[in-house]
């Protein structure tokens, strides 16, 4: 079984004004390619820290985190930037779309970061927006879209450059139940194509059924990894 993410003995501590807080303690976690892994647990248990390390935007203190066999800590900051730009897509709780750009321009950002011509990138973005049901709204600013529509734009932005891993932080928590389910259906159907892997941090028990694996965390430890959904 090929692994998208392999974490071994990951440890991360924070210095909060002289007090050392352990956010991750000896984390061991494997995420196979083509699977959807959910990280669940109470607030402050280390989910966000773990997803940040996996996404390569935070360095661990010790241990190894490999993405597609590449140890991110061995990369220079410039190489890490390029790696993230090419291989990782992000979906955020608060959507984090750029308010001055329209839907298509927001979706086109990862392609532009990867060096594509702006005009071509926007054209590809419009095509992808059609696939997520927003073909007619590509000129709309984020403020002109509903929460569900904004999250669909954010998902399109995470997918546009065809990354191998998508990390999602509470993708449904700002949405009502029905919209949240629609977003998860979209993620599951579109995002998991081509052996792509998904890591989703969530509190939302209603969406556990979409996971292939659910890793429960508490106090910086992974206490349980289940293959079957916790609730269906």
């Amino acid at each position, binding site marked *: 079984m090929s692994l998208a993410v392999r974490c071994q003995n990951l440890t991360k501590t924070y210095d909060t004004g002289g007090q050392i807080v352990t956010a991750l303690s000896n984390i061991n976690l494997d995420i196979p390619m083509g699977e959807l892994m959910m990280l669940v647990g109470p607030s402050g248990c280390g989910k966000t820290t773990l997803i940040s390390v996996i*996404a390569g*935007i935070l360095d661990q203190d010790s241990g190894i985190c490999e993405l597609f066999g590449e140890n991110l800590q061995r990369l220079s900051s*410039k190489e890490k930037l390029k790696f993230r*730009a090419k291989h990782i897509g992000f979906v955020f709780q608060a959507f984090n779309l750029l*308010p*001055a750009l329209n839907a298509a321009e927001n979706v086109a950002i990862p392609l532009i970061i990867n060096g594509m011509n702006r005009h071509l990138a926007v054209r590809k973005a419009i095509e992808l927006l059609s696939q997520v049901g927003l073909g007619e709204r590509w000129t709309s600013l984020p403020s002109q879209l509903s929460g569900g529509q904004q999250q669909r734009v954010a998902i399109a932005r995470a997918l546009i450059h065809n990354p191998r891993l998508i990390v999602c932080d509470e993708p449904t928590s700002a949405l009502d139940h029905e919209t949240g389910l629609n977003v998860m259906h979209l993620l599951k159907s579109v995002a998991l194509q081509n052996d792509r892997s998904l890591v989703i941090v969530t509190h939302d028990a209603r969406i556990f059924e979409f996971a292939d694996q659910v890793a429960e965390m508490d106090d910086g430890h992974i206490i349980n990894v289940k293959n079957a959904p916790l609730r269906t």
Partner: protein
Amino acid sequence: MGDKGKYIGIIMGLTFASLIMTQQPAIFVGLMSRSYSFISDLGLPDIWVMDTKVQFVDDIKPLQDTELYRVRGITGVEWAMPLYKGLLKARLTDGTFQTCNVIGLDDATLIGGPPTMLEGTLEDLRRSDSVIVDIDGATEKLGKPSPIPGGKPIPLKIGDNLELNDRRAIVVGIAKSTRTFQSQPMVYTTYSRAKSYAPKERKLLSFILVKTKAGQDAHELTERIKLNTGLAAYTQAEFKELTYQYFMHNTGIPINFGISITLGFIVGAAIAGQTFYNFTLENIRQFGVLKAMGTSNLTLLRMILLQAVLVGSIGYGLGVGLTALFGYATRHTILAFKFPWQLLVFSGAGVSIICIFAALISMIKVFRLEPAIVFKG
């Protein structure tokens, strides 16, 4: 990013800074150029001869008339003419008094007259009791009182009378001359008539105007005049510089304007810098998103610089435009205003410094930003 109010705020700050950094220096330059405008208006002579104690053009230390003949006898002098310059009181038709700058020109040649005649001719000064008045003085300070209370004065015209030191003066011409620093009305007459208007003194010759012979170096001639007469002699440019330096070092004008310009710069920098920084802070999550997605610091730096250059250009353009508008609106008033291209460069540099400062404090924040911020609620 998408906040029109703050965007306008930054532009307003830069517009204000640009306006202050051009309008105030333009008034300063205008004022300082007026200090030597009388010298500029007299384009014909190459050299001005005067008492050694004279510090600037309005600082009259009269000479004896015989000095004129000594100067005329110096090798290299094409001609030398007398010039009277003095402040005399004119009695107006309503009985009030107005101090005037009376200029007495050589009776024979009338050298030293106003640069432009609007009505009448310079030769009309050969008529008895004749004077020529400058247009600003004729329409404002020397004008006849309006029959309507609070109304504009009725301008002096050819044929009107003035009283200069109890002697009659008949207006025979209206001239255009550059306003001087003191903004007194200019009254031109002949040298001998000016002496009759002036209070009786042993010495009344203010300046000797000298033309160099063809091929004669002006600086050499000034040295020769100094050596032979013991008087001070300056080329026109040197006399302007002497006057300019006097006002720079002996008046509070440079300090006052310097304070205004500095305050404009500081206030503009503070408004633009703070608004730009707040703008960045409010959008810090968006910068974090871009960083997380793989945008390099260099790209973010270019984005911030582009925004700074854009708002800087708009603010600079608006500020300079407003200054030009101000200059146009006040072109016929007493206000001194001169807007040379150097001021555009000066204010452009000032606005650039403000933009660089504003962009720099934002860039430091963005450079230090951990992209992991995007996952924090």
